[in-house]
């Protein structure tokens, strides 16, 4: 079996707020159904669901690999009007990371990997 893509389904406690959040973060939104949206950036996609599962979201972690973490931090730090949390850029042996909690509690590891790690 050869896999060409994996897409995650993220639940949201306020669907419209999460839709706005991910668009402001730089994703392009498309409607899939009334209760499901698809977000795309750089050929990478994920689903956002209107349903909410608190237990799932507060355990959920996703890695968002970016080309330029400083640019990502600029975008994140300028997000306004969302109940989100983020930490400063942290340097790790394998690269750099920003921890970003989305509006429904999902935790994104926004990472820029060292060139040697790829």
């Amino acid at each position: 079996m050869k896999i060409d893509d994996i897409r995650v389904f993220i639940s949201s406690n306020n669907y419209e707020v999460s839709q706005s959040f991910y668009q402001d973060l730089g994703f392009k939104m498309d409607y899939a159904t009334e209760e499901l949206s698809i977000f795309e950036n750089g050929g990478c996609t994920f689903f956002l669901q209107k349903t909410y599962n608190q237990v799932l979201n507060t355990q959920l972690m996703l890695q968002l690999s970016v080309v330029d973490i400083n640019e990502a931090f600029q975008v994140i730090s300028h997000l306004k009007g969302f109940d989100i949390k983020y930490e400063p850029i942290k340097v790790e042996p394998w690269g750099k990371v920003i921890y970003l909690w989305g509006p429904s509690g999902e935790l994104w590891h926004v990472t820029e990997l060292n060139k040697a790690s790829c």
Partner: protein
Amino acid sequence: MLIMFNSSTVQYFIVTLIIFCSTQTLAEEADCQSLSEAHCLTSSQCTLNYISENTYSCDMAKNTCEQGFTQWTLFPTDTLIENNSAKSHSAPINYEQMKSCEIKAGCKYSNAEGYCEPGFNCSVTGGKPAMCEME
């Protein structure tokens, strides 16, 4: 421009500053307490403290050793983690994590004891996670 403050104005500023600071601290503490175990381990501003077997408390990092220390993080390469065969119930020592702690003066890394980090398949769990503590 000369600005003059009388003593009551200064007192007002000090009280306001204290209220602002303590409110911010309470908010940050509440942020940590709202995190799940996995998310708490990841945060460099919160620390997952061991209370008793399988019972933990996620608290705001309380000193320079805990601040900036992540008890769990992504490791795309397997070269960073080495086995410590001397202690049967200890997790493998993560030397990069240890270095990130002990590079700070007065900080001592303590390896996880009987704790299973996310992404690992362990035979023992419920113990103390890795900590970066003041010596």
